[in-house]
């Protein structure tokens, strides 16, 4: 009987996770990509003998192997849980109802973001691009959570909506149209560039490519 109950529970749990993965594909893909980049990237750097944050903070590699998947899994659970609370329409309604909080948070986010980015060592090249993308995403998510809290507090204080501007409504509509494809394009571009570099490195290693044809072409 216990076995039967366990099998039903595990099947139900699996279905919940699969359903979440299928429903929130963009969130899953984003966090999956960031996890892959952080996990595999750090392991390659570690075994290549290059300095990683493990040496900087005196952390064990086993701690990293266990902690990073757990941290990213928890992040995925939180992100999908928050996403499950809203549909696109209910979220838009929330934006319509809280124009002052929205404007203040957007201004604060945009004003503070350069300082957040400049305060960290982002590396160079594509790594810099991916690290900056990760910070922008995390900071946007944290700002969104704070914005939800402020909206909730303000809805408790003021029962009725005080401000209603047409230009604001139109801007929110435009943002809701522009942001999803723009986000997908940027994420796709980053993944495509990383894939291009990984494939080039793999082919170069497998076929012992020295770049002699390029050197000949450019007369080196």
């Amino acid at each position, binding site marked *: 009987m216990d076995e039967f109950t366990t099998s039903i529970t595990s099947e139900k749990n699996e279905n919940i996770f699969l359903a979440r993965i299928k429903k929130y594909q*963009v969130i899953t*893909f984003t966090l999956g990509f960031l996890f892959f980049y952080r996990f595999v990237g750090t392991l390659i750097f570690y075994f290549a003998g290059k300095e990683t944050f493990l040496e900087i903070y005196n952390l064990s590699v086993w701690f990293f192997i266990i902690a990073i998947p757990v941290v990213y899994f928890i992040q995925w659970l939180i992100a999908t849980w928050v996403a499950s609370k809203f549909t696109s329409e209910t979220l838009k309604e929330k934006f319509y109802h809280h124009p002052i909080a929205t404007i203040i948070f957007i201004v604060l986010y945009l004003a503070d973001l350069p300082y957040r980015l400049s305060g960290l060592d982002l590396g160079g090249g594509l790594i810099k691009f991916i690290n900056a993308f990760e910070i922008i995403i995390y900071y946007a998510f944290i700002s969104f959570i704070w914005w939800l809290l402020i909206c909730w507090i303000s809805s408790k204080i003021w029962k009725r909506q005080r401000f209603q501007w047409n230009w604001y409504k139109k801007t929110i509509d435009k943002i809701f149209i522009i942001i999803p494809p723009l986000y997908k394009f940027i994420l*796709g571009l980053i993944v*495509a560039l990383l894939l291009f570099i990984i494939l*080039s490195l793999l*082919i170069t290693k497998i*076929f012992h490519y020295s770049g*002699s044809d*390029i050197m000949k*072409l450019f007369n080196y």
Partner: protein
Amino acid sequence: MRTIGKIIGYLLWIGAGILMFIFWLMAMSKWLGFLGTILAFILAPGLVIFPLVFWIVEGVFPTFYFMVWGIGIVGLIIAGISSKDE
């Protein structure tokens, strides 16, 4: 996910195509000068002819050309798989 898959696939394909064209353009302009540059825009490199000519003329196999071509095919496969789900 399908959209992102298509974006990744097509970007790889287009990126590879641009790099292959730059390779073709550079080779043509090196061999024929200004006329080669114009001809590079008019003519198509062909699947095997241009790499073969490059190999004969320069004496080096154009590995880069095939490498980028392969990456482009990978991109096309990704885009194809992403489109199939629809």
